[in-house]
């Protein structure tokens, strides 16, 4: 009688761990696209590793690495139109880069430069969210507005498995579905929320199935299979653009690194588990196997590409740090559109003290 609990969600997968899949299905992806996809994924892996090193060297602040989640992020963003909105959390640097954020800006951001937090005007990327789950509501509102204005952008909201426990997530799904707004809720289930494994986060068998309660479509996709993610996302976005309403996508993936650079993952998971994901399910590996099978990629190309990206990183870092201007009086800017009288006074006082060299 209560057998709806037996409901099963099949996981969408096009490319298995060894780079095999249905030939016909795989043939629908052009060589050019596959190379672009792989280049992006390899590129962001290199960037992630460099950022992690820079944090260890004290050159940037606390950092949340995304290695292991490249397929989910790149695969989903490449399915978007340039003017679609994305709503990232702290772990979506790869998605932001692929949506057009300049690398130099990432460095400004992680170095705490005031302007690092300001997204370029022509990019539809919402400010990075760190309060868990909050951006689900912002994405819903943005999508609602585009719908009311008769525009055709879709809003894509990124968040983790842990975020699905927040009230915000549930209210956002409910709201989005009631108003049938063009928003995609893209959950990267990377198995952990800091130390808490996903089975302690939810008793649902999948996160995707939560969509049903809100009268919304839900899909579970292999988040380490960039092709499956891309295809699923493409369909979701098209449906949303056609006025078919929101969708929840659960991309099953794994965080290979620590939660952030302030975390010690050995406290809560064993090396063997991590090794399994690294060796067997790395999202880059299976795509590379496919590329090699098609004769699209060689070890030499790999090396050349990695070297090129490394150079790009160095250049972007230099660009970001070359003219690090800024002054403590900047701290008062942007609290309000036009500063209040009190703030103006506080700012002027600091400027005076600066002139007198009482503060630097």
């Amino acid at each position, binding site marked *: 009688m209560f057998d709806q609990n037996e409901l099963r969600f099949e996981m969408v997968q096009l490319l298995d761990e060894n780079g095999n899949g249905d030939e016909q299905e795989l043939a629908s992806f052009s060589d050019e696209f596959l190379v672009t996809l792989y280049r992006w994924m390899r590129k962001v892996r290199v960037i992630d590793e460099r950022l992690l090193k820079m944090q260890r060297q004290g050159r940037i*602040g606390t950092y949340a690495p995304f290695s292991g989640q490249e397929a989910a992020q790149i695969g989903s963003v490449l399915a978007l139109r340039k003017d679609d909105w994305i709503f990232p959390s702290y772990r979506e640097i790869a998605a932001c880069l692929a949506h057009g954020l300049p690398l130099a800006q990432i460095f400004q951001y992680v170095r705490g430069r005031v302007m690092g937090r300001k997204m370029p005007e022509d990019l539809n990327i919402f400010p990075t969210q*760190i309060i868990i789950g909050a951006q689900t509501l912002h994405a819903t509102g943005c999508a609602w507005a585009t719908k009311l204005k008769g525009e055709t952008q879709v809003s894509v909201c990124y968040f983790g498995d842990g975020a699905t426990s*927040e*009230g915000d997530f549930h209210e956002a799904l409910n709201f989005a579905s009631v108003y049938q707004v063009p928003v995609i809720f893209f959950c990267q289930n990377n198995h952990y*929320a800091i130390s808490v494994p996903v089975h*302690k986060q939810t008793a649902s068998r999948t996160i995707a199935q939560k969509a049903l309660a809100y009268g919304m479509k839900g899909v579970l996709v292999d988040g380490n299979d960039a092709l499956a993610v891309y295809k699923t996302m493409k369909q979701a976005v098209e449906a949303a653009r056609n006025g078919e309403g929101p969708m929840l996508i659960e991309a099953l993936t794994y965080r290979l690194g620590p939660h952030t650079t302030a975390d010690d993952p050995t406290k809560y998971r064993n090396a063997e588990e991590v090794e399994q994901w690294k060796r067997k399910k790395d999202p880059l590996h299976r795509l590379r196997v496919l590329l090699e099978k098609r004769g699209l990629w060689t070890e030499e190309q790999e090396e050349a590409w990695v070297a090129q990206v490394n150079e790009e990183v160095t250049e972007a870092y230099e660009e970001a740090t070359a003219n690090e201007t800024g002054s403590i009086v900047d701290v008062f800017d942007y*609290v309000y559109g036009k500063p209040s009288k009190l703030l103006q006074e506080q700012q002027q006082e600091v400027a005076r003290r600066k002139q007198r060299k009482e503060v630097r």
Partner: protein
Amino acid sequence: MQKTKQRLLTGNKAIAEAIRLEMERDPNVFVMGEDVGVYGGIFGATEGLFQQFGPERVIDTPISETAFIGAAIGAAAEGMRPIVELMFVDFFGVCMDQIYNHMAKIPYMSGGRVKLPIVLMTAVGGGYSDAAQHSQTLYATFAHLPGMKVVAPSTPYDLKGMMISAIRDDNPVVFMYHKTLQGLGWMDQLDASVGHVPEEAYTVPIGKAKVVREGTDITIVGIQMTTHHVLEAAKKLEQHGIQAEVIDLRSLVPLDRETILQSIKKTHRLLVVDEDYLSYGMTAEIAAIAAEEGLYDLDAPVRRLAVPDVPIPYSRPLEQFVLPNADKIFHEAMKLVNE
């Protein structure tokens, strides 16, 4: 004579020890929150408890602050004594209804029938580049709302003693601990984060400030982290022939007005230093008390030093600029004594 062993503990271990002792004493005490289990709390406040008491009494919750604070209210009404950790005080935004409309008001609205002996433990403070949503203290935000006690201890000794008092208190107590006083390896190491803590259970009363340095020329009130900055400034002031009396507020609600008023009777000058925003904050509250009840004792207007009215910046130099430090306190104090 009290027998005390000179045993040194960090802030986080002092808190965890207090909770452990109370959990051993009272089976109704339990802990819940995000990453409080195997991980021991991201600021170490529950270190070792999971290993000793297991998952039934040290509970890792989903990231559902409204749910676990609301559930603590229900459990407390049913006779339990929950300790819930809100990982960062900044996250009060997602669960404030449960905190101030329910935890703080149900005892009142039930005519005293329902008691809610809850400790809402939460990490506060900045200084380590964690940006606007992870660096606030929000002392005054909580202190402003009737129905909860609010404490902010600054030494390992007080962290332990006040945690035990908070657990035994029949009222909801918001227990704020400062991240940089936890003595964690990945943060800047401060001498103040380590201190003498006796092994046995003891209490430090809620509602009593502490004169941590006696002086005659100026009273400087500190709250938690700023108390340590004030003490540093006081040393420098001494080199200039100025004897500062330093008060560690410790308890925001109830607020110990007497200790402050007595001190200004002696020094006739008052400087208040807070790591919360300047306007509408604890500094204003204390200045108002001095104005209402101690005005004739003062030789000069009260001075306040706090975070300017801007969100805490992520940028290290900007953050260092907005936070109070010993240098700034020294300068403010010098201005005040020369007035």
